């Protein structure tokens, strides 16, 4: 497994060791360059279809951060992306590619809906239990992939993607069957969760919930875990060199399972947050794509925690501003999807700049080590 990780993902992350500048600056620089390229290509496409890109982009900005309501909605869009972005970043610290954030998030959301509907408790306790249950289920769901990897060598990219489908169909079954709300209308959805299980809204008139605070708090916790604790040290060691870690008495299998569980629990918590903060009931077909956008978020954020928060915010802006772009500048909302895809494309091209600045043989840095 380490070989696959070593080559492909390190490339995606970009190798900054040869550069003179501090890695942080290089990361930011590369992400900004990728963004600039994506927006430039987007502008060209708008010109081709006869729209005004300047008008479109200013509409994008004003309708996402231009007033209090839009700004709050943008942050609400950002919230789940922070969770799912952190999910990938957490896994990546141990060089594990958790592509199952979508399924883990939805499992967490379903669990929170279940807790919110089926139990009653005083407000802070009820919502806390719903969030905790969502995190646990998300973690267990992802832990399946961890166990398969650690003990059966099943590559986590495959198993996490497959588990997404299992989650989709399991959830479909639950909301059309056992958890379906009993009404005269035959709607495949759960009942609305109890008031006591709802996260408060904190930025009216927008729908921004206290989940945003939970997201930021989670980001700090993940950062602390990875950078400050002995466990974080161990998981980084396993990710970088499992053989040396083993030689040092660390148990890589245990770490692998643990990282997958932790990583999935972040997505599960994210699902619980959007359920208790935004959707308030699980409707069939809830398929927000947060887990998939998270791949772009983690890439653009270079798998660093501040980077993930910034990238999540950017994608929040794109999602919120897309409609404004359509109504004001008559640019189809699909353009935003295209720009998102272009961002991924350019971020995954680590040597974008060197297309222009001819750089020879990266062997140099390692030649005499």
């Amino acid at each position, binding site marked *: 497994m380490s070989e696959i990780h070593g080559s492909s993902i390190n490339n995606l992350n970009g190798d900054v060791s040869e550069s*003179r500048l501090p890695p942080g600056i290089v990361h930011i620089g590369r992400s900004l360059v990728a963004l600039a390229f994506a927006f430039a290509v987007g502008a060209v496409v708008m010109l081709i279809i006869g729209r005004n890109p300047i008008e479109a982009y200013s509409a994008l900005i004003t309708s996402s951060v231009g007033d209090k309501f839009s700004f709050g909605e943008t942050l609400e869009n950002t919230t789940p992306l922070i969770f799912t972005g952190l999910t990938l970043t957490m896994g990546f610290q141990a060089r594990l590619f958790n592509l199952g954030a979508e399924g883990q998030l939805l499992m967490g959301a379903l669990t929170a809906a279940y807790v919110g509907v089926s139990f009653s408790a005083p407000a802070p306790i009820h919502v806390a239990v719903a969030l905790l249950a969502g995190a646990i289920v998300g973690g267990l769901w992802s832990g399946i992939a961890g166990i398969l990897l650690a003990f059966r060598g099943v590559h986590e990219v495959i198993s996490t993607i497959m588990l997404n489908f299992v989650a989709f169909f399991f959830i479909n079954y639950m909301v059309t069957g056992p958890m379906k709300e009993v009404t005269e209308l035959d709607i495949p959805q759960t009942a609305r969760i109890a008031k006591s299980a709802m996260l408060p809204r904190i930025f009216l008139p927008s729908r921004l919930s206290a989940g945003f605070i939970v997201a930021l708090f989670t980001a700090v916790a993940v950062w602390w875990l990875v950078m400050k604790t002995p466990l974080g040290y*161990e998981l980084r060691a396993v990710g970088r060199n499992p053989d040396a870690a*083993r*030689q040092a008495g660390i148990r890589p299998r245990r770490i692998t399972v643990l990282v997958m569980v932790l990583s999935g629990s972040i997505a599960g918590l994210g699902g619980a947050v959007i359920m208790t903060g935004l959707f308030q009931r699980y409707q069939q077909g809830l398929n927000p794509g947060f887990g998939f956008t998270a791949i772009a978020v983690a890439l653009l954020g270079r798998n660093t925690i501040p980077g993930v928060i910034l990238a999540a915010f950017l994608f929040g802006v794109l999602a919120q501003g897309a409609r404004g772009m359509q109504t004001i500048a008559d640019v189809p909302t699909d353009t935003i999807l295209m720009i998102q895809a272009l961002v991924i494309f350019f971020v995954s091209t680590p040597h974008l700049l060197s297309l222009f600045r001819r750089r*020879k043989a990266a062997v140099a840095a390692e030649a005499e*080590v």
Partner: protein
Amino acid sequence: MPVTPVVEMRGITKVFPLVVANDQVDLEVYPGEILGLLGENGAGKSVLMSILYGLLQPTSGEIRIDGKAVEFDSAHDAIAQGIGMVHQHFMLVPPLTVVENIVLGAEPQRSGGRLDMETAARQVAELSQKHGLEVDLQAKVEDIPVGMAQRVEILKAIYRRARVLVLDEPTAVLTPQEVEGLYSIMRSLADAGVPVIFITHKLHELIGVCDRITVMRRGKVIGSVDTADATPPLLAEMMVGREVILQIDKSPAEPTDTVLTVDSLTIDAADRDLTLLDGISFEVKAGEIVGVAGIAGNGQDELLDALSGLRSPTSGTISLRGTDITATDRRQRIRSGISMIPQDRQREGLILSFTIADNIVLGEHRTTRFSSRLKRKFEAISAYARKLMEAFDVRANDETVLVSNLSGGNQQKVVVAREMSRDTKLLIAAQPTRGVDVGAIEFIHRNIVDMRDQGAAVLLVSTELDEVMQLSDRILVLFRGRIIGEVAGADASLETVGLWMAGHREVAT
């Protein structure tokens, strides 16, 4: 009459962001000669050769071939101009046959672009006979031994009409017999008009085989000497810049209690019907160094994995001070006082993208000294790392430098510092000086002996016979998974141990 050098490098300077790797280097290779290129790790040999091979472009300076200035933009250009290179790590395609590998990229073709493997095989066979490069043309590379793979690499270069051949640390992977074979191949090539540049950091290798030796230190050429005038102390001094003690002096061992007891240890291969370690038994006492000699692949890896707790034996027991520890894992063995210098520092000993400090506490990172449950004690870690860097002469600006930025010798010192600074009852040192320059070898050997004198039991596993002979109080020789012979260090002769290593037990006393 002045002879034109085949290859001439003039005033080569290569500047990297933080370091001048080559500083006005001059090097020339004349027809018919074997030139030794000697230098410590980090002296600039590999950079110089990468420039010659077109992998790097010099900041300034000039390369001439047969007196004509050339410029290489890539290895492709260099090969076209007749530079052949055999890297330390072979660049072969394992599932292809020997002959396919040799002609790869320069395949003879029939009309219509069809491969002509018959011609290829014939041409390669001719070359192979001419220079005594014995290879099995139709064998797959993944099935052939290392020595043959190296000959394949040499043939590959000659097949591409190399005018000069660069061999980078070619003996590191070979048995003594194979080394002899390589030397005669080198001589044959040089006589046939393909001069050889032989890169190494092992002194004694050069004197037997080279005509001339060029020594580099810190990016500069210190000088060139004819082999006739060269002695190991002279070369060592040129290389390191000071006098080096090539022979460690140590007092006789005073062994006390038995620390390690290995009893009938057997390991079978998991996937094949093969016994890798065949019922070996030995003891190591406190205050003695027991050396395990043997050619690589005779059971050393399995023995080391079993002792460190990474692999459970098929049968047999391992005891530490009388306690059976066969069933314990690596973590418990570290706690019980077994330290281990693994044989491949980059694969098993270090996390290259971690700092020196993070590597120095690896394995002890959970102890209360360096961590509480929720927070590592960064102050204590840094202070400890600085102390060890000082004591073990790890050369770097500070403890926050990434280990990947250190030279091989300094990387090894980080491992050695870590493993030797624990409360160690048993030190297992596997290839403790692999790829390390003479100055650092002296230092590491000194430390191993000091540890013994302080009462640790030391098991030294090395394929460097000199090292085993020099340090060990007792020598065991591994051959095909068995201990074929045992002799006291003081009584051991190079001939006897060498013969045992090759499996000739009957000659032994």
